């Protein structure tokens, strides 16, 4: 290097000034978004604060994604008029589910240096009954049809750059006793009829039956996913079917809706919705032609509701559960739907 020290320092100082300006501009630009986001967008759904309860029949509750002061809050609409005006509760959740007057709300807690996450168990009036630490970024939440059990899944990882060695942690709680199972990995796994141990086991997407004993979930190991049936009493998980992710049990307990990785589809959008009949083990592809990365919700015995990416983050769609018909948009700017029954 033939430059003098003086000129080198000058070059560095100039570059430092330029780079600092660019970096500051990027931060200012991104923080200015807050203002825009707090303003109601014209044409978006109308949101007004009000009481939200988890025991009103005929209601749909979800996380509101529309810009404005009530963004990310749990809101309710009549299930018969889902695209209409919303009532916002003031409770913010990343993921949510509710049944029989019990809600589970996965929240971010903003700390001074990093975010942490927690799961709140909510009563009918959205009052906190219990709270648990969640070890990573929340992804799935479910309450059993009886309201007695709740489960959630978090992505744990991020300590290896470019490694992106993610794993999932699925927790289960008995709402009545408060007894927490921090990880489904504590359960015994029976795969293809034999006890199965592996370091790479991951579980996600629990869905409960109404007997307070049976549940279903995804088991991933060796690069494959399986549908497992869980037994809360024997603390056992048994594999039933391959290539199943994010199962969702129908209200009558006879079928499981899930996303299936279909060969030949793009690596970043590989899923299609299917319904599996648990008696005949027959799979039916649903009429949704897009890749769905969500745990679907049963609106009733015939209809499934799920989120797809939309202008505000996500929109809710519904499709018949028997493979017929066409998908229909339920409402925009919404995610994590629940039909509290």
């Amino acid at each position, binding site marked *: *290097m033939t*430059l003098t020290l003086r000129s*080198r320092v000058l*070059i*560095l100082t100039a*570059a*430092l000034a330029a*780079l*600092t300006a*660019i*970096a500051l501009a*990027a*931060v200012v*630009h*991104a*923080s200015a*978004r*807050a203002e825009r*986001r707090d303003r109601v967008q014209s044409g978006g759904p109308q949101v007004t604060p009000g009481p939200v309860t988890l025991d009103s029949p005929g209601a749909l509750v979800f996380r509101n994604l529309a810009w404005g002061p009530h963004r990310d809050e749990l809101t309710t609409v009549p299930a018969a008029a889902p695209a209409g005006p919303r009532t916002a509760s003031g409770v913010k959740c*990343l993921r949510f589910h509710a049944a029989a007057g019990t809600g589970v709300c996965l929240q971010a807690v*903003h700390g*001074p*240096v*990093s*975010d942490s996450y927690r799961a709140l168990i909510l009563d009918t009036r959205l009052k906190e009954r219990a709270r648990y*630490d969640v*070890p*990573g*970024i929340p*992804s799935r939440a479910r309450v059993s049809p009886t309201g007695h059990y709740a489960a959630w899944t978090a*992505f*744990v*990882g*991020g*300590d*290896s*750059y*470019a*490694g*992106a*060695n*993610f*794993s*999932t*942690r699925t927790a289960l709680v008995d709402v009545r006793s408060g007894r927490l199972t*921090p990880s489904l990995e504590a359960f015994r796994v029976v795969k293809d009829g034999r006890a199965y*141990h*592996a*370091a*790479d086991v*991951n579980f996600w997407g629990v869905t409960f039956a109404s007997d307070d004993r049976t549940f279903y979930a995804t088991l*991933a190991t060796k*690069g494959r996913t399986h549908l497992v049936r869980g037994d809360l009493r024997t603390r056992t998980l048994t594999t039933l079917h391959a290539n199943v992710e994010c199962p969702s049990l129908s209200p009558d307990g006879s079928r499981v809706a899930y996303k299936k990785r279909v060969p030949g589809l*793009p*690596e*970043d*959008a590989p899923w299609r919705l299917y319904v599996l009949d648990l008696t005949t083990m027959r799979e039916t592809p649903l009429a949704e032609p897009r890749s769905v*990365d969500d745990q679907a919700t049963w609106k009733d015995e015939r209809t499934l509701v799920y989120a797809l*990416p939309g202008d505000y983050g*996500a929109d809710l769609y519904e499709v018949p559960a028997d493979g017929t018909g066409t998908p229909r948009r339920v409402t925009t700017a919404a995610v994590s739907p629940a039909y509290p029954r």
Partner: protein
Amino acid sequence: MYVADSRAGTPASAEHAARPTRAGRRRTALAPTVLALGTVSLVTDVSSEMVTAVLPLYLVAGLGLSPLGFGLLDGVYNGFSALVRLVGGHLADRGGGRHKWVAGLGYGISAACKPLLLLVHTLTPIGLVLAADRTGKGLRTAPRDALISLSSTPETRGRAFGTHRAMDTAGALLGPLAAFLILRATVDGYDAVFTVSFCVAVLGVLILVLFVPATGPEAPPRPAPGSAPAPDRPTLRAALALLRRRDLRRLTVCALLLGLATVSDSFVYLLLQRRLGVPDRWFALLPLGTAAAFLLLALPLGRLADRWGRRRVFLAGHAALLLVYGLLLTSWHGAALPYAVLALHGTFYAATDGVLMAAASDSVPEALRSSGLALVQTGQALARFACSLAFGAAWTWWGDRTALTLSTAALALCATYALTALGPARQPGS
């Protein structure tokens, strides 16, 4: 794999401090090149760890992707990165020392990847960008360590590498902090994080270009004590012939064997959590414990290595790792256990990571320094990768306790062999 992946193969710089005219000052002052390279690494690690820290959040919360698929590609990246390191080492040696420019190319590629993250929104292209970033990391590691080694005297090399590793780790700890401060100040500020990360990376490249002298042919050859004179031209064959040198071969074989018994960081944290019931919310902080101990001890242990012998400190570091395994196997559930395990784990890195490079430098002629260091690093990295696979399989078949018992036995065995192969009797320059 926090520490292992981000630091296992970071080579540093070359320095003109080696010039005979400055010989008198070498004992007191660290070569400016080492400090410059340390600064480059610190700044670059701030940049890369910023991205690391927010990447999962970005994928899941920002893009709504399920990031599990990445795990499968990870192994491929690891193997690839190790091979790229050999290429980087060889390129840097050819033509009489292009270390600075090959390292600069590596830093540049990684810097260019940051704005690309703003443009890609699906899993496959994101995977490709991260692979390119790893390629840059692989390329720069060996030339940078060669620069550090060439710019310090044999007596101060441990200290030089220790200083560099400490600065590097400081950057790794500051990066996530910077990222979360930005996320705190913004709304969904991932674009701001990537942009700032890019600016910081460019700054790192600039510091390298402006303040790190190139090792040119003008640098007089300084054969390491006890080694044969360097071959005339650093050909690929000459690089491979390095393994015919007894000293280097012994060291490489020992690093390889010990690497085969070095359980990857993520398994250590997982075992710690399972055995001791570390609460979930602390899990993400476990790597920080290791990094903090590494940061604090890298320089003191580097100095110790200069005085007491690099190979001895290297072996003592593995004794610390053996203690980690031992503690994880005991049934002691004391509150101090996680601290003890993480402190020892950080000690292991502080006593082995830079120290191994300092030790290897003793046995590699200057003209082949980069290739030689790359050879040792690649051997070690591939051995650790093989250990990860084997450990995962053993865990699957026999459970975590048996897997750890086997690793402990393997480590004790390899350490005993290394003790006889590298032991005090063969300690060069001590």
